[in-house]
C-alpha cells in the first residue's frame, strides 16, 4: 500500500506536470496555431504583414490569417449572435470600437500587457491621451483625405474641400466611400462651417438636411467605393478625377508606384484605429499576446516606415525616419505633420459611435431620394 501510494504520487505528479504541455499541444493541434485578424487589405495590410504578422509568427510560431474588413459592426454582431466566432483580433476605427465595446461585442484588454518605452516610460504615458481603453488599444493615426488625379486637371489644381463640390471648375467623377462617414463633414466644411462647430451642426436635423442638399449637387458624379484600395484604382485608371481615401494608400500609390496622385490636406479627417479582441473569440489569450507584440514601439515604428500612418506612441514616433524600401522621408506624409494639421478635422469618435443608426438612416434616405437639384 505504502509502495503503491508512493508510486502513484510520483505518477500523479508527473502526470500533472505534463498536463499543461499536453493541453497546449492539444490546443495547438486543433487550431493549428492560427490567429484570425480582421483588417483592411491592400498596402495597409501589407505594411501590417511586414511589421507585425510575420515577425509575430517568427517569434511565437503562431500563424496569422487575415480576413478582409471594411469597418462597421455588422459582421461582428452576426458572429456574436450565431455564436460562430470567426475573428479573433480586429483592427477597428476607434468609433466602431467604442460602439462595439458598449454593445458588449469586445473582450476586455488588460493594459498591463503593454510594454514600456525603451527608456522605461510606462506605456500609459507613452501612448497619446485616451489611447488605452478597457476594450481597445488605439494604435495608429490615419487620415481620410481628398486626392485628385493630376492628369484630370492640367491647368488649375483643386486645393480645398470646396473644390471637391465644384463640378464647374473641376469637372469629373468623384469617388466617395459608400458610408455615412466623412461626407457629412466635407459637405458642411465646403459651406465654410468652421471645423470646431462641425459636429454641433451635424447634431441638428437642419445640419443633416444641409449636408444632404450639398451632396445633391454632385449626386450624378459620384462613384462609390467600399474597400480601402479602390480609390487609388479609380484615380489611376482615370475613372475618377477626385477621390476620398486613406492617406497611407495614396502615399503608397504615389511614393511606391509613381501614380499621378496629389493629396489635398484641406479638411483631412483624422481618425484612429484600434486593436480589439472579439468577445466570442476562443483564442483570446493568443490575441492578447499578439496585441502586446504589435504595440511595442519598435513594431509600431516599423509599420510607420512602410506606410504614412502615425503611431500613437511617442517613443514609436521618434523612431520614424525614412521609408524602408524607397528611402522617402516619412514624417512630411504623416497626417499629424504640423503643415497638415491647420485645417484638419479630428473625427469625434464619441459622436460617431452614438449616431450609428442615425447616420445610417440618413444615408439610406439620401440614397433613396430622387435627385432634387437645387436651382
Amino acid at each position: 500500500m505504502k509502495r503503491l501510494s508512493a508510486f502513484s504520487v510520483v505518477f500523479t505528479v508527473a502526470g500533472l506536470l505534463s498536463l499543461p504541455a499536453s493541453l497546449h499541444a492539444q490546443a495547438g493541434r486543433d487550431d493549428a496555431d492560427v490567429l484570425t485578424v480582421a483588417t483592411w487589405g491592400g498596402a495597409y495590410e501589407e505594411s501590417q504583414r511586414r511589421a507585425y504578422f510575420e515577425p509575430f509568427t517568427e517569434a511565437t510560431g503562431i500563424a496569422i490569417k487575415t480576413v478582409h474588413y471594411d469597418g462597421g459592426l455588422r459582421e461582428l454582431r452576426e458572429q456574436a449572435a450565431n455564436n460562430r466566432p470567426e475573428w479573433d483580433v480586429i483592427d477597428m476605427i476607434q468609433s466602431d470600437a467604442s460602439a462595439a465595446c458598449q454593445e458588449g461585442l469586445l473582450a476586455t484588454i488588460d493594459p498591463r500587457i503593454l510594454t514600456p518605452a525603451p527608456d522605461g516610460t510606462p506605456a500609459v504615458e507613452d501612448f497619446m491621451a485616451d489611447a488605452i481603453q478597457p476594450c481597445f488599444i488605439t494604435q495608429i493615426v490615419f487620415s481620410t483625405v481628398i486626392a485628385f488625379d493630376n492628369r484630370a486637371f492640367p491647368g488649375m489644381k483643386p486645393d480645398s474641400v470646396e473644390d471637391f463640390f465644384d463640378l464647374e471648375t473641376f469637372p469629373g467623377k468623384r469617388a466617395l466611400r459608400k458610408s455615412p462617414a466623412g461626407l457629412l463633414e466635407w459637405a458642411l466644411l465646403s459651406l465654410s462651417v468652421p471645423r470646431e462647430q462641425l459636429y454641433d451642426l451635424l447634431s441638428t436635423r437642419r445640419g443633416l438636411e444641409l449636408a444632404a442638399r450639398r451632396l445633391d449637387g454632385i449626386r450624378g458624379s459620384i462613384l462609390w467605393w467600399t474597400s480601402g484600395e479602390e480609390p487609388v484604382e479609380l484615380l489611376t485608371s482615370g475613372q475618377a478625377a477626385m477621390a476620398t481615401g486613406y492617406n497611407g494608400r495614396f502615399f503608397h500609390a504615389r511614393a511606391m508606384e509613381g501614380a499621378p496622385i496629389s493629396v489635398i490636406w484641406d479638411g483631412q479627417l483624422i481618425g484612429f484605429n484600434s486593436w480589439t479582441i472579439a468577445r466570442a473569440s476562443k483564442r483570446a489569450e493568443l490575441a492578447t499576446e499578439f496585441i502586446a507584440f504589435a504595440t511595442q514601439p519598435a513594431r509600431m515604428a516599423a509599420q510607420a516606415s512602410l506606410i504614412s500612418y502615425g503611431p500613437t506612441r511617442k517613443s514609436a514616433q521618434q523612431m520614424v525616419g525614412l521609408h524602408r524600401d524607397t528611402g522617402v522621408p516619412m514624417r512630411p506624409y504623416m497626417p499629424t505633420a504640423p503643415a497638415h494639421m491647420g485645417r484638419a478635422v479630428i473625427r469625434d469618435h464619441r459622436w460617431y459611435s452614438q449616431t450609428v443608426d442615425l447616420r445610417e438612416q440618413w444615408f439610406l434616405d439620401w440614397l433613396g431620394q430622387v435627385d432634387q437639384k437645387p436651382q
Partner: protein
Amino acid sequence: MDRKGLAQIIYQICTVTLVAIVVGAAASLAAIGFVESVHYLNGQLLISPYARVLAEGRPLLVAAATLLVPAAGGLVVGLIVHFLIPERRGLAPPDAILAAQTSGPAPGFRSGLASSFAALVSLGSGASVGQYGPLVYLGAMFGSLAGRLRLNLRHQRSIAIACGVAAAISTAFNAPIAGLVFAHEVILRHYSLRAFAPVTVAAATGYIVANVIFDRPALFLVSFDRVEHSYEFLFFAVEGVLCAGLAWAFMRLLRASTGAARHYIAWPWARPAVAGLAVGLVALWIPEVMGIGQETLRFATIEGAFGIGELGLIIIAKLAVTALCVGFGFVGGVFSPALLIGILFGAFYGLVLPYLIPVPHSGLVVYAICGMMALASSVIGAPLTTILIVFELTRSYDLTIAAMVAVVFSNLISYRVVGRSLFDLQLRAWGFDLSLGRDKAILENHRIRDYLSREFTAVDESESVGGVRQRLVDDHRAEAMVLEETGALLGVIRVQGVLNSPAAMPARDAMITSFTTFDEDTSVWDSMDMLRGFLGEAVPLVSHSGRLLGVVPEEAVIRAYLEIVHDLREEENEAA
C-alpha cells in the same frame, strides 16, 4: 516737481495698473468659468443639439427633457431670486452702470453671486436669455469689490467696475478692443485717459487669459470677400432702419411680457417656471428657441440652410419666447437673443431682397451680419462696440463697413423712438435718466439735502411782527421761518413784507404761505429747476411730515451744481 508729488504719481500708476490686472484676470476667469458651466449644463440636461443627438436612441427622454428642464430651471431661478437676492430680481448691466456712475450703495457681493448663479441655471436649463448681461455684471461685481479697497485712488469704484466689464466682454467675445469700448460707451459714458489706461490693461488681460485657457469657437467665423456693388450700401441702410423697428417691437414685447407676468401670476417665484414650460412646449415644435442657439446662429450665415417661411417663423417664435423668458423673470441678458434674432432677420432680409429688387448682390453673409449687429446695437445702445466686434471677429474691412452703415441707421432711428438702449430705459424707470447725458442724471442723483444749512431764524407763529423784525436785524437776515410748536413749517416772513406792518401783529398773520420748499428727496437738478423765479434768500427744506429740517441758501444750490459738474469735467479730462 517735488519728490512727494512724484512718489504719489508712481504710487497711483502702479496701484491702478495692479487693480486693472487683478480685476481683469478675475473677471476673465469668472467669465470663462461661467461660459464653460453653461456649456456643461446644456450638455448634461440635454439642451444642446450635440447632447440630444447622443441620446437619439431614447426619444422619450429627449422630449421629457425638452418639456421639463426649462420649467424646473425656472422654478429654481424663481426661488433663488425670491429668497436669496434682496433686490428680488437678477442683477444686470443697468446695475453696473448705476454703480459706476453714482457713489450710492451698490448691490452686495452676495446678491451678485446669487444672481450669477440664477443666470447660470437659466442659461443652463435652456431659457431664451443672453449670457453677456450676466457676464457684464460678473465683471462689475469684481470691480465693485476692488472699489471698496482703501487705495486712495480717485474714482476708484467706477474705474474698477469698467475694468471688470471690459475684461468680461474681451474674454467672452475674444475681442479686447470691443471690451474696452463697451466699458466706455455703456458703463462709464465718457472718455478720459485716467479710466482709459487701466480699462485697456484689463481688456488686454482678459484677452490674454482667454487665449491661454479658453477654447470656445468664436461667436461667428464667416468668410466674406467684399461688397460687390456700391448700391448695396443703400440696402444696408434700409436694413438698419428695419432693425430699429424690430428693436422697438422687441422692447415693447419685453415690457408687455413683464406687465403680463405681474398681472396674471401672483407669486413672483413661480413666474419663471411658467415661462420655462412655455419654452419647452414651443421647443418641441421649434427646437431653435431653446438656449443661446449657437448652431442656429451659424446656420443663418449659410446659404440654403433656411427657407424664407421657416426663417420668419423662427424669428417670431424666438422674439416671443425671449420676451416671455426675460419678462417672467429668468435671469439673463438680451444681447445674445438680440444677436440671434438679428442674424436671422438679416438672413431673412437677404433672402427676400432679390425678389423685391432683382439686382445682383453679394450673398447672404453680409446681410445676416448687418442685421445681427444693427438689432443688437439698438437694444444695448452700443453702436461702436458692435461695429468693433464685427471687425475683431472677422478682420474684414468690407464686412465691418457694411455693418457700420446698418448699425448707425438702426441707432439713429431707435434712439429717437425708444431711447438709447434697453438699459437706459430700465435706469430711467429707477429714476436715473441718462437720456440727456450724464450731467442731468448725476445732478438728479445727488440730493440737495446734502447742502442743508442749519443757520436760519425760526420764529413761533404767535410771536409779534416787531419781535421778528428785531431778530432779523440781529441775525443779519431778511427771512424768518414761522414754525408750529411741533416744528412744522407754517410760512415764511420776508423783511420787505413786514416793514410797515404793525408791531403787535402776530407772525401767523404776516407770513407768506405760498413759497418754494424742498423736501428730503429733492435732487440738485430739481432744485435748480425750482429756483426759477425765486426771489428769497434760502429755500426751506422740510421732511415728509412737514417738519423744517433746515434751509438751502441760493448760493448752496449754485455751489452744488458747480461742484458736481466740476467733478464730472475733471473725471472726463483727467490724465492717468
